[in-house]
């Protein structure tokens, strides 16, 4: 009944033990968090590995902790715990929303936030809202700790900045700026269990007049090998009040930046149209919420 290739199993109990193992055998190992990507890849023989390091039961790597500056979310925090967090909903609803759209409930009780970005699929649900919320990713190894912005973590399809002896330990998300709001949206083919055709998160911050845009961060997922942070949309919007004409232009600007591919889930043309529609809708939504914030 053995369909996975041969590997040795390690079950460290602390982060220090994980880092020790990674320093030792990181080049011959895969970390197992929830396993919802990894076990499937092993089964499909897409990857092979000599060692599996189970980080899913290391308690200090999981949990949601509020601080004076914002919130810290451990890499091994389950997607379902984010989805069900009544405390995260208020300031970090874009992330909670995205968490609730990932896979099925069973997948969400197994899958972790760290696993989602580390798998670095172009269609990943949570990298876009994390980037829009200005999250940082904390990376540790025995050599030390470094921090990268969420949008800089993924380099391409299943490629990221992690070295062989490194792991992602937590996300640090700052408290939202005054007069700001972040929203998430996606368009897929079915209502549940689908892989997104396009997903997007938009963070709009207004000046004290609650009308003029101070900053805007629009992040698109699934339309290129890595999430794209729009440069054209801030160029259009900062210093202005939103109006219908600008909304149209924002849609066009986002479409011009997206580099979608055609695949089994959607054609490139369809994806571009969806980018325009999402950019228009989400920017308006975020702007209106920011006026009330």
């Amino acid at each position, binding site marked *: 009944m*053995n*369909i996975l290739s041969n590997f*040795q199993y390690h079950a460290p109990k602390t982060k220090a033990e994980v880092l020790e193992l990674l320093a030792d055998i990181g080049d011959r190992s895969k970390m197992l968090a929830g396993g919802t990507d990894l*076990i499937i890849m092993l*089964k499909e023989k897409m990857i092979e590995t000599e060692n599996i390091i189970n980080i899913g039961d290391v308690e200090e790597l999981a949990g949601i902790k509020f601080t004076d500056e914002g919130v810290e979310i451990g890499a091994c925090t389950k997607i*379902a715990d984010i989805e069900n967090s009544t405390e995260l909903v208020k300031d970090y609803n874009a992330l909670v929303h995205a968490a609730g759209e990932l896979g*099925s409930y069973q997948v969400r009780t197994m899958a972790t936030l760290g696993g989602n970005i580390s798998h670095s699929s172009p269609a990943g649900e949570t990298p876009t809202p994390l980037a829009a919320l200005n999250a940082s990713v904390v990376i540790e190894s025995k050599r030390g700790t470094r921090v990268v912005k969420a949008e800089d973590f993924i380099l391409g399809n299943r490629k990221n900045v992690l070295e062989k002896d490194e792991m992602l330990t937590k996300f640090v998300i700052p408290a939202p700026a005054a007069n700001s709001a972040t929203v998430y949206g996606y368009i897929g083919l079915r209502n549940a269990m689908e892989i997104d055709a396009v997903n997007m998160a938009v963070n709009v911050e207004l000046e004290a007049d609650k009308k003029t845009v101070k900053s805007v961060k629009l992040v698109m997922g699934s339309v290129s090998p890595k999430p794209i942070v729009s440069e054209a949309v801030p160029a259009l919007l900062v210093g202005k009040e939103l109006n219908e004409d600008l909304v149209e232009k924002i849609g066009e600007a986002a479409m011009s930046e997206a580099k979608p591919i055609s695949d089994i889930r959607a054609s490139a043309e369809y994806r571009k149209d969806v980018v325009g529609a999402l950019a228009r809708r989400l920017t308006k939504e975020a702007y209106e919420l920011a006026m009330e914030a």
Partner: protein
Amino acid sequence: MKQIITLNINNQNYDVVVTPMDLLVDVIRKTVGLTGTKKGCGQGDCGACTVLIDGKPELSCIKLAVASVGKKITTIEGIANEDGTLHPIQDAFLDHGAVQCGFCTPGMILSAKALVDRNPNPTQKEIKTAISGNTCRCTGYINIIEAIESYANSVAEKEAK
């Protein structure tokens, strides 16, 4: 690389010989012999292999047996009452004609039970969301949703008393 691990399934400890590669679904079905847990797609899509791990629904087809040590595993065989009579959610499925071929039923019931355990008053939308990872080829879902609603109502009524 065979090793002996102890799995706690339905409140009983089983010492089983496994390799690190063995999937929980195979150990439950073949080594332990509890065949109520089904294996459909083997890829996390259909939910037939759903078991509860520390009370939460997980997919045993993408879970290593070795990673399940020290946890409380509940399979469909573990939810009936001690005297052998059915759990009320099982009765609700029977009463509402929510079972046809039965292949999806163990996973469906465990997903539904976990939902009502965490949210005793689910809306129809919440029920649909909770079972969106459980595929049924036969029933068209309507009777399943009704069965879960009626079970949730009976739990809510009991709690009100």
